[in-house]
């Protein structure tokens, strides 16, 4: 079965450093998402992306965050200046069509630890 792949699986970074998390969505999918889950808490929506632009974002997704689809296969999340509270598991997801009524496939996550 096709899957969403994410790299790195785990990254430790110093506070204030920039981090880029990478994702390869399922090949025929058109909608891409980032979610995060702080340890012991619920999965939270960050941003959705379609047709090379952000279609929706949450309050969490402030100016420190950005997303990009630099080529036909990768989808990246950049955190410009990491804070301790950015420590979380970040999940990339994709869907073939718009989220409404369709299955979203999640990757296995990138665990980010900010020290």
């Amino acid at each position, binding site marked *: 079965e096709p899957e*969403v792949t994410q790299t790195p699986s785990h990254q430790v970074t110093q506070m204030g450093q920039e981090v880029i998390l990478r994702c390869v969505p399922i090949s025929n999918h058109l*909608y891409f*998402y980032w*979610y995060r889950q702080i340890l012991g*808490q*619920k*999965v*939270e*929506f960050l941003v*959705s992306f379609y047709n090379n632009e952000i*279609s*929706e974002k*949450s309050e969490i997704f402030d100016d420190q965050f950005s997303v990009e689809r630099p080529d036909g296969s990768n989808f990246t999340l950049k955190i410009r200046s990491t804070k301790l509270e950015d420590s979380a*598991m970040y*999940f990339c*997801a994709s869907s073939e069509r*718009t*989220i*409404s*009524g*369709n*299955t*979203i*496939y*999640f*990757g*296995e*996550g990138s*665990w980010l630890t900010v020290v």
Partner: protein
Amino acid sequence: SQKIEQNSEALNIQEGKTATLTCNYTNYSPAYLQWYRQDPGRGPVFLLLIRENEKEKRKERLKVTFDTTLKQSLFHITASQPADSATYLCALIDTGRRALTFGSGTRLQVQP
């Protein structure tokens, strides 16, 4: 304020029994509601989707109901197995939005 509530206490049942998990929501008008399974350190895995005009959906040993009057969804696993032990997440898509909002999940433990 908007809330999605799932029982935060773990549900422990014996193998072979039916597990029933509850998801209640407040101040949402979801067009769709979904259930996911999440194992420790892993990403959510989609299980079932139910639309607002559907009362019930089944897939193998899984059944989901959706009552928009009660603002509640029930998720059933029949003939439960130890391999069903995981956290089950309720998620909904509010009308007009393009994002999933998740509940905090209920951990199910099936004892052999």
